[in-house]
């Protein structure tokens, strides 16, 4: 019988890459001085799954390589081989090799065989080398021979299969039968407290078992029964105390344990004895992003339809249409919460980005001969997926910079009276409608004089009177680098300007604070999502435009004598003691209808520290709008950053404040 397995490939690759990530994370956690058996087990399990999958789907190179890895890990977890830093580094490199093999297999290209062969050789050598047994203090890992066997009466087993257990073709009953063959078995079934049959999928396993096995069998024998489901359940096997409390043979507690701390809302999620990698425990499903985008679009439409209904409803007689109006109010609430939940789907924790740094810092610090510890805070802070993806590269660059330029070598640090180990802190938090990401290092900080000298040597204008903040901003200038040595890590002077550009493109801001010799703090402020924007709607002629509220300073009614004409057509408006360039939106967007320059209602906008007054016909109000791309079906429109759909179903364009200020300013200055 041949089966087409290719449709499972995608899942295999996704799971394997996740497995590699968790292997990497676990390897970095692994402290040779204090080996945690469970950490090695996690690594082993991930390697094992990849090997198994690779074999099943015919990726022999993957399974052959992972087999070596697994053998080495097995020796480590059984304590036959000591965990030493060199070995950990070898394993990390092997993880890269497996990743390369998997990527090659996924993309259907040839893998970098030279690299793989090199790693394979290293692994084989390591395996061939004398196995140095671990020091006896190392806890014997689960799966090894039991440390205590003989005086034991039996075992207490806590078995909590994941909901997807049945899907892998396993049956808990078979396991129970197998166990009862070993001795006298008592079992107790627990069901999650509010188990609603209507909401339960029959193919999912929701029960968990507390088992007591009175038997002389060894732990390994007991574990054997669970061999097939090891990855699909949470399993805890403890030796029974000599006198076990009496329990009824089989109690089925329906809806019981509700009084237990297991929260009703999170019923299918047990807090197991071990902390497993994220989505295993929370029971997530994979959904392609475009499906979510379709959902978000549909909800956006629903919100618009709802707004249209509300507008129509407001014109009805409240007495005669009371029931209709109540229903409309209900619809309003439901649509809003639906919208919020749907937007929430796109949110990912910052950990998504943060998790890549431990490995990077480990490798880089080793290469640069520095000692660096990474601390992360607020990794759970959620951010829109599209923002997270776009912030990853700038963040990587900043962390790399902090490590390369910020943190000193251990000798320099000692000389400066600082601990040899530098600390880089990554912190994320919510503040208002923004997310704040901070990159803090306790390195040498920015050197004002050197930056000024460097700026001048590169022909940048840099007066001595600049404030510190203005000096720091110089490092964002294109081609600027103060690094003494150009390393292959950073220092080529490309980067900081790109970092700033990327952050600005996300409607974000970046600020620097630094103290010479003490360290530096980079603060990035980003909007939570790119999909929704707080806007002010304004009317020009018959058209409605949206100005991002973040850019609006104030709106004002200019008196005729406050408006001055400079040169031919450039105009400025006096706002208190400041002269601000004035642009009539009519003139700018060149739309028919409405006269130019006859009104004096202005909106003052600010971007990148420069101001601009926009002449408009009418202010309509403030509202949250869903940002839609103009480029997906059309092309870029000058001065517009996108479009949105108004409550009446019409399209309104969103003004790009940064571009307006940038493109209109030089003309006026000239």
């Amino acid at each position, binding site marked *: 019988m041949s089966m087409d397995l290719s449709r499972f490939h995608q899942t295999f690759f996704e799971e394997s890459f996740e497995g590699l990530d968790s292997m990497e994370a676990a390897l970095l956690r692994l402290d040779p001085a204090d080996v945690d058996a469970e950490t090695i087990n996690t690594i082993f399990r991930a390697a094992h799954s990849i090997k198994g999958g690779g074999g099943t789907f015919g990726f022999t190179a993957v399974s052959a390589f992972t087999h070596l890895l697994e053998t080495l890990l097995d020796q480590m977890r059984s304590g036959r081989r000591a965990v030493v830093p060199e070995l950990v580094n070898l394993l990390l490199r092997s993880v890269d090799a497996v990743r390369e093999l998997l990527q090659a297999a996924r993309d259907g290209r040839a893998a970098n065989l030279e690299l793989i062969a090199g790693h394979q050789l290293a692994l084989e050598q390591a395996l061939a080398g004398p196995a140095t047994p671990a020091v006896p203090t190392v806890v014997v890992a689960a799966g090894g021979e039991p440390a205590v066997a003989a005086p034991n009466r039996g075992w207490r087993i806590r078995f909590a299969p994941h909901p997807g257990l049945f899907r892998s073709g396993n049956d808990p009953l078979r396991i129970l039968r197998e166990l009862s063959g070993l001795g006298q078995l008592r079992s107790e079934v627990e069901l999650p407290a509010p188990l609603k049959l209507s909401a339960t999928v029959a193919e999912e396993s929701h029960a968990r078992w507390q088992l007591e096995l009175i038997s002389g069998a060894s732990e390994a024998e007991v574990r054997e029964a669970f061999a097939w489901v090891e990855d699909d359940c949470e399993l805890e096997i403890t030796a029974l105390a000599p006198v076990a409390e009496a329990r009824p043979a089989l109690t089925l507690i329906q809806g019981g344990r509700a009084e237990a701390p297991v929260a009703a809302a999170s019923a299918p999620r047990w807090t197991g004895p071990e902390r497993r990698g994220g989505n295993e425990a929370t029971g997530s499903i994979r959904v392609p992003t475009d499906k979510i985008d379709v959902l978000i*679009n*549909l909800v*956006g*439409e629903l919100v*618009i339809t709802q707004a249209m209904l509300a507008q129509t409803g407001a014109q009805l007689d409240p007495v005669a249409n009371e029931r209709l109006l109540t229903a409309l109010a209900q619809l309003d609430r439901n649509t809003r919460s639906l919208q919020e939940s749907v937007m929430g789907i796109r949110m990912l924790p910052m950990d998504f980005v943060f998790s890549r740094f431990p490995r990077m810092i480990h490798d880089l610090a080793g290469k640069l001969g520095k000692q660096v510890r990474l601390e992360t805070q607020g990794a759970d802070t959620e951010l829109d997926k599209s923002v997270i993806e776009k912030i990853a590269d700038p963040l990587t660059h900043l962390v790399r910079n902090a490590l390369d330029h910020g943190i000193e070598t251990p000798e320099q640090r000692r000389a400066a009276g600082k601990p040899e180990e530098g600390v880089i802190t990554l912190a994320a938090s919510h503040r208002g409608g923004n997310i704040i990401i901070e990159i803090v290092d306790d390195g040498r900080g920015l050197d004002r004089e050197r930056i000024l000298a460097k700026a001048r040597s590169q022909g940048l204008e840099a007066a001595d009177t600049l404030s510190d903040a203005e000096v720091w901003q110089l490092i964002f200038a294109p081609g600027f680098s103060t690094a003494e040595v150009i390393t292959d890590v950073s220092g080529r002077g490309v980067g900081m300007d790109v970092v700033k550009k990327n952050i600005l493109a996300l409607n974000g801001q970046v600020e620097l604070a630094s103290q010479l010799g003490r360290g530096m703090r980079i603060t990035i402020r980003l909007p939570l999502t790119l999909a929704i924007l707080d806007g002010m709607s304004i009317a020009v002629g018959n*058209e409605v435009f949206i100005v991002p509220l973040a850019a609006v300073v104030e709106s004002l009614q200019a008196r005729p004598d406050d408006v001055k004409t400079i040169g031919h057509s450039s105009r400025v408006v006096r706002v208190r003691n400041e002269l601000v360039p004035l642009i009539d939106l009519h003139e*700018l*967007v*060149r*739309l*028919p209808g409405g006269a130019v320059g006859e009104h004096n209602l202005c909106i003052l906008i600010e971007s990148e520290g420069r101001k601009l007054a926009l002449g408009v016909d009418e202010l309509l109000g403030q509202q949250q709008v869903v940002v*839609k*791309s*103009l*480029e*997906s*079906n*059309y*092309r*870029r*429109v*000058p*001065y*517009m950053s996108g*479009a949105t*759909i108004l409550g009446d*179903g*019409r*399209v*309104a*364009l969103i003004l790009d404040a940064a571009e307006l200020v940038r493109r209109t300013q030089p003309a006026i200055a000239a």
Partner: protein
Amino acid sequence: MDTAATEARKITAAADSRSDIAAGREYLTFTLGAEEYGVDILKVQEIRGYDAVTRIPDAPDFIKGVINLRGTIVPVVDMRLKFKLGKAEYNEFTVMIILNIARRVVGMVVDGVSDVLQLTAEQIRPAPEFGGAVNTRYITGLGALDQRMLILVDIEKLMSGADMALMDAQAQSLQ
């Protein structure tokens, strides 16, 4: 607008019922001035009446603006203005063909939508060296059907062309 929409529904329904016929290709025909044109029915997403269009600054006059098509922002081109044919009037009979080309959605205003026709290979003759308002580069052939003469247009190529100003240069080079 209602009339146009009803008409549109009839035509779309007709297209559905005929899509089973395997031989030959099907064309949606529309009129521009005195000429009758045909486009590959598979490029047509739907037919709508002309609706509230939001003007775009700095766009050529034949780009009428953008509409909200069930949550998507779709540009609208008036072919009558582009090819200087017919009178560009907007009333309840004005029809817009929504095209799905090069993974983009574009609305096209024409004088009227007439029919869905099936043409066999024998009925299609090579394009003449000189043609009507549409550049011969975009004409794939002439369809002869009884007394009618259809100008068959490669609508994807036409809409992706630089002179339509519908795409950024970058997007064009990707085509």
